[in-house]
């Protein structure tokens, strides 16, 4: 198991390096950074001066080496628009996004897994149809519209939850529901399909022949096998959430990574943009790594290979 984790960690590190190289070259090729720094109206000499001053005239490999050397030490450059170090801005925004992501995926799992199990236990009944409806609606609703509906009823009409900002945990309730509900249909359908398959398997018949009770059969023997593909999909969704949701963060005025990404792209704030993309990629890598390790813990057959 330890060897397996070490191997996966090494692969994750290689992925992170590759992503950083790709984003570095993409950001540099998307526009001339010297022009972006100097501004659109700057004279050609000023642009050239800035190019030399910032070392942008050197080969891109050297520029990347310099950037990577600093990034490893936690220095992601300086944002002239926000007048602070990029690492500070990111660290400032990260907790908001992480909280939102963690709460959203929890909500999605708590909603979707029981619904999926229920639907699989009573396939093609009214319960299955209700679960299906809930999931189809979740898939079909635009998340910004659902967020606004939540706001109108739970925020304004009944005044149950705050609708703007991130100062208390209560501020995260509505955004987490909006973001989590959007992620739940895939999890629910996957749980249902997995449970249906597992419940028809020989080892579930064995469990029944042993006289085990329904709860133990469903939640111990069946769910553990059915949930393995769910873990992988939930990890991708979590990675997506940890990257920050521009729509949800904007609607609920949460100052997270999503907003930061959008602002930095808007202002051609290259250092910030690059750091946000890298953090985003790192979150994906960490989430899938965690999923792989969790799956190996759930299913011993994965450990062997």
């Amino acid at each position, binding site marked *: 198991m330890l060897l397996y984790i070490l191997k996966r960690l090494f692969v994750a590190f290689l992925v992170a390096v590759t992503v950083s190289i790709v984003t570095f070259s993409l950001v540099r090729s998307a526009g001339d950074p010297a022009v972006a720094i100097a501004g659109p109206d700057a004279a050609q000499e000023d642009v050239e001066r800035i190019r030399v001053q910032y070392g942008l005239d050197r080969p891109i490999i050297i520029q990347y080496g310099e950037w990577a050397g600093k990034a490893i030490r936690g220095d992601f450059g300086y944002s002239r628009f926000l007048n602070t170090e990029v690492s500070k801005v990111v660290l400032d925004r990260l907790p908001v996004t992480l909280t939102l992501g963690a709460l959203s995926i929890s909500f999605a799992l708590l909603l979707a897994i029981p619904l999926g199990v229920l639907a699989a236990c009573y396939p093609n009944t009214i319960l299955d149809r209700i679960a299906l409806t809930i999931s189809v609606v979740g898939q079909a609703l635009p998340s910004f519209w659902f967020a606004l509906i939540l706001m109108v009823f739970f925020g304004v009409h009944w005044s149950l939850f705050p609708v703007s900002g991130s100062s208390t945990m209560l501020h995260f309730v509505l955004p987490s529901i909006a973001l989590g509900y959007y992620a739940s249909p895939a999890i629910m359908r996957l749980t249902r399909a997995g449970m249906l398959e597992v419940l028809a*398997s*020989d*080892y579930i*018949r*064995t*469990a*029944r*022949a*042993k*006289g*085990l*009770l329904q709860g*133990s059969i469903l939640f111990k*023997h069946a769910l*553990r*096998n059915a949930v393995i593909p769910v873990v992988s999909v939930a990890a991708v969704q979590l990675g997506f959430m940890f990257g920050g949701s521009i729509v949800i963060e904007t609607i609920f005025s949460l100052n997270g990574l999503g907003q930061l990404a959008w602002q930095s792209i808007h202002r051609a704030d290259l250092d910030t943009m690059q750091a946000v993309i890298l953090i985003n990629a790192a979150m994906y890598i960490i989430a899938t790594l965690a999923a792989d390790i969790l799956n190996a813990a*759930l*299913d*011993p*057959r994965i450990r*062997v290979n």
Partner: protein
Amino acid sequence: MSTLLTIEDLSVDLPVPAGVLRAVRGISIEVSRGEMLAIVGESGCGKSLTSLAIMGLLPKGATRLAAKLDFAGIDLAVIPDRKMADIRGERIGMIFQEPMTALNPCFTVGSQLEEVLVRHRGASRKQARDRAIELLEIVGITPAAQRLSQFPHQLSGGLRQRVMIAMALMCEPELLICDEPTTALDVTVQSEILSLINRLRRDLNMAVILITHDLGVVARAADRLAVMYAGQIVESGTVRDVFATPLHPYTQGLLACIPVPGRTAPGERLGSIPGVVPSIIGEARGCSFRNRCSLAFPACGEADIPSMPASHGGDFRCLLDERDLAHRVAAVGGSH
């Protein structure tokens, strides 16, 4: 020997796209304590569904009807599902054909064994563990303590089937149902598993229902046998009697398929029965074997064939006279 299980007129219907499949049609069997009854038949004759019907594990949609389904004084036909779950694994154990898929891949052998005792006896982890080790040793798995922490995929097919047997025996059931326990295994392993089941039966005075299509297995292990065809029992009796004088043409055909050392000449063609088992959908009249039977005559298709007592104490389901049928065996046997 006292009777442990009495089944009278058990029927199982399965809904299929074409109508209602009458998978089991009014079978009656009795099993005494310590006795091994073999139920023999081709694939699709209803023998596995019979065993699942006893366990109350029929697939969804299947209906079970029985005049009597008595296990040690308990009427299994009317018992609620929760009470039936108390009996399964505690008083009736079952092992299945496919040891490769019958164990849960995500749990250790130990935890799958232990949970039976925890469930039925409220045993502590320590007690359950000790019992699991004891049973693994009984079924010949050593070193037992080490195997407990292994997962099913780390064991061979033969070992997994031994684990299945150990699991079924955790609570020393009075009845063990074995559904094709050796079919998926190598021949040498088959023989070991069979000897093991037979030894445990004697040691524990446990009744065994052995479901198989392999008459060689029956000859080696069972006391009595019931031959099933298209959902009915067409012949039953002690293994010795039925093998010596098979009466029903189907049984005779089955026995002619087995090579007998000394009697079957090298290179000689073995017997075979043309055609396949029919699936009875909806109402059916007459003998279901008549289309494959060389002795069939018009009356075979006209009415249901009653089960007739045979002189050796068994039963057979054929319109022909017992003496004529018995005589035919002698003739057929001679020609081989």
